[in-house]
């Protein structure tokens, strides 16, 4: 009988400790709505960052094209002067 009482008290202590632990473990939890909000924000941010990279690449390509056209124009202006002189000398 004495042993049974001891065992019950030990079990009570253990259960109490465990219940305490479970109480601390089960604090705030995000709701489905919260989870969805975070997932959607994350997906949107990643997609936007990808789009930004694509736009950046497009912009850089255009910058290259503009620089090439500027150089072409400059060369043509110089060439035009040369042709003009050549025609005058003929």
């Amino acid at each position, binding site marked *: 009988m004495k*042993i*049974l009482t001891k*065992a*019950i008290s*030990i*079990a009570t202590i*253990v*259960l109490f400790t*465990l219940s305490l*632990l*479970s109480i601390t*473990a089960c*604090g*705030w*939890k*995000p709701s489905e709505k*919260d*989870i969805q*909000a*975070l997932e959607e*924000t*994350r997906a*949107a*941010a990643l997609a*936007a*960052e990808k*789009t*930004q990279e694509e*736009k*950046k690449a*497009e*912009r850089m390509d*255009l*910058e290259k*094209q*503009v620089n090439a*056209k*500027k150089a*072409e*124009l400059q*060369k*043509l*202006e*110089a*060439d*035009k002067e*040369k*042709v*003009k*002189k*050549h*025609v005058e000398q*003929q």
Partner: protein
Amino acid sequence: MKIRLMLSLLLLVSVFALNGLFAQTSYDYENMTQEQYNALLAEWQQRLGNAQTGISNEEATIEELKKQLAELQARIDEQWNEIYQLASSDKAGFDAFGGDLQGLQNDARAMLNLSAEDIYTRMNEVDALQQKLDELKKNPFAAMSDHEALINSIQNLINQIKEKGAAAVPPSYTVARGDYLWKIAAKADIYGDAYAWMRIYTSNRDQIKDPNLIYPKQVFTIPRQVGPNEHLVVRGEFLSKIAGYSNVYGSPFQWQKLYETNKNTITDPNMIYPYQVLKIAR
């Protein structure tokens, strides 16, 4: 028995509880704290905001660049039109000029690949290349930088061809006391064949009045190759046969023209000799 049962139950419950405790260390929503959630949400919101701002900026820059590109293209087209007007030509004329230069460059490259001797015999073609280049230089498009570079490159090739061909220009021989044409022609470093004296004689007619009379210190050219507009007679040939060759006149009936041109070395049109060098008047 009851105690054992109770202890087993306790152990089981403890194991479940401990599992729950350890599970809290992994990153998942089940065990996420509110602070963690809020921090993550704020981070992603900020990243989204930054990216959206970045996209807007990039799009604005892209639009601006597209405008610049269109403007530059319009100015380039305008410059081209002015150049065509100055040259009294058009795009087709410009392209044709570029094609002519390219063709000339290819011809010059092919010519440069020939041996020095071949170049020497085709000096007429080298001169023709030079003439064509000089003609193309007169075109107003020749002044444009790309064409200028191409023209310089072609001129360089032609100069190299001339230099290479010059190496095959006949060397000379200075007559020593006791020499006679037969003896000179027989020398190993000359022709190694006494019968080739005729070649020395016909190639130096300006210095040799009589093939039996040559003088010490006279300098004779010793042609190694037949030059342009020349023909080296070989055994079995006669004037009408030579005149009939496609690279001569292409007609045997023109033998008289050949005879007239070489009257100073041909005394009888029925008698020509191997090694005799005949000039071909064009």
